[in-house]
């Protein structure tokens, strides 16, 4: 078996007295798409923020053979991990093209060559961004903002791309477009860790899935198997197992 690209063991995040995430174990093979699903408040964003160094964490994190423990956010970015956060965090008063160019700052620091080829690639993925390249990021629509956030993260040529609820606030049609693009990234050598509330769409796209509930991973497996598991509905809707089975029957 190939060495995993990314692995975490006993990973936990605490803020103040609240233990938001505990004992998380997760493995990602290179070139794969892994999704973490779960109801709201389960700790999904906390997981990504902890992995990115935005929140203090405990436990082991090994990326490409290197331990990330003690590294700050910027260093993790330099190591090749990129996060598209829930709130996108775009530079609203700067144009689309500047937002994208800034995405390659990491490579600038690593003294790699100019990013025009990378920019062309991102424009191919998201043609709408090319049309709006001189428009201020703050004036884009919700879907376009999300595209810009993903495009900006890709400009840094990350090995691992982490996405926090990319479908949030987007119309269903655009969600599908977005997820198609994300699914196609593995061909370009980018592995993806996708955190989503929209369980069905995420499982349709991913290779492997983990279900988070109240800060713990309660279920994991190949995405196809998880998709049919009534335990997921139970988790999301706060039901007992028999209710969940009945609900699953009703919708099938």
């Amino acid at each position: 078996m190939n060495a995993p690209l990314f692995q975490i063991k006993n990973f936990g995040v605490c803020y103040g007295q609240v233990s938001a995430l505990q004992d998380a174990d997760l493995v990602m093979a290179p070139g794969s798409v892994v999704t973490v699903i779960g109801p709201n408040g389960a700790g999904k964003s906390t997981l990504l923020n902890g992995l990115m160094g935005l929140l203090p964490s405990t436990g082991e994190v090994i990326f490409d053979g290197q331990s990330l423990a003690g590294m700050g956010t910027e260093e993790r970015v330099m190591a090749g991990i990129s996060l598209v956060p829930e709130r996108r965090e775009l530079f609203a008063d700067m144009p689309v093209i500047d937002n994208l160019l800034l995405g390659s700052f990491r490579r600038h620091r690593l003294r790699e060559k100019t990013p025009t080829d990378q920019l062309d690639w991102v424009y191919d993925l998201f043609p709408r961004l090319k049309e709006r390249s001189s428009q201020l990021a703050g004036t884009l629509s919700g879907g376009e903002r999300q595209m810009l956030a993903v495009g900006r993260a890709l400009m840094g040529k990350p090995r691992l791309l982490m996405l926090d609820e990319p479908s949030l606030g987007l119309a269903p049609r655009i969600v599908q477009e977005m997820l198609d693009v994300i699914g196609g990234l593995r061909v370009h050598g980018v592995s993806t860790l996708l955190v989503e509330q929209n369980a069905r769409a995420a499982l349709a796209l991913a290779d492997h899935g983990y279900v988070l509930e109240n800060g713990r991973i309660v279920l994991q497996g190949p995405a196809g198997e998880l998709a049919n598991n009534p335990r997921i509905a139970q988790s999301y809707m706060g039901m007992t197992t028999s209710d969940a089975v009945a609900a699953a029957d009703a919708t099938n």
Partner: protein
Amino acid sequence: MNSFELGALLVQDGVTTGAIYALLGVALVLVFSVTRIIFFGQGEFVTFGALTLAWLQAGQMPGTVWLLLAMALIAGALEAWAALREGQPRRLARIALYYLMAPGALSALMVWAAPRGLPLVLQCLLSVAIVTPLGPLLYRLIYRPMANASVLVLLITSVGVHFVLAGIGLWLFGVEGYRTPALWEGDLMLGNWAINGQGVMVLGAAVGLIVLLALVFGYTLSGKALRAAASNATGAKLLGISVAFSGQMSFAIAAFIGALCGILIAPIVTIYYDSGLLIGLKGFVAAIFGGMASYGFTLLGAVTIGIVEAFSSFLASAYKESIVFLLVIPVLWWLSRRGGASEEH
């Protein structure tokens, strides 16, 4: 002199000082928008620049060199210790370069140049060159460990920094005031209209610097990175634009601007070790006009202050300062109504 000529003279005067306030205002807004620090010590960069030049003019070695070396050594030691502790000894070479060799070379240059009576322009360059690194060193030593503090704590810390720098200024330069010779003696004649030469220099430098900053921010990746850090701190972090980078770079620019202002006004106004406070504060008033955010309004405010100051100096000289500072209140009131109070703390 008829009233038109008098008015023109006062406006000229006002625009000259306004240009200085504008530069300082720009520096303050830059530092604040990137680091959330209301940098109370900006005026000290001005006095250090001016007094360093005065010392060079007198053929003496300015104490600024010692300050630079001391700060560089301490900062370098801290960086080296951190590199060792994190198990990254490869960084030591870079650290030695930035914190030992560069300041060392600059200081050596200064030692060599001081008694030699070099041309004024070169001495100006040297003064600016030696004061500029004080900015990022100050950030590294004092503010970087406090990067997550609230705006208020950072402001009170800046007050402390101002006191320390002013005191050091007293120690290095003494209580005397100094004036340096003008870079451009005499006047520029536009028809019948005489424009003061130094004033032209000041205005030219101010315009030039603002254009340069606009180019850096608009066209270089590092400049854009700084704007990004000001626009969204989290977003910048996620792209690898570290807080340390943006802090040090903005402080470097602020120190550069301050030193430049120092050498520009040194021929116009007698500078003492404690002149920085008042000059810096007027830069503040300009920055407040801009809501600590807009460069355009900062420029406008600065020119307004300069002109108001020139006219009140002429008409009611005793109340000049009061009028300038009282102007701030209605501006702040208007800004707070427009901006609205925030729960941020």
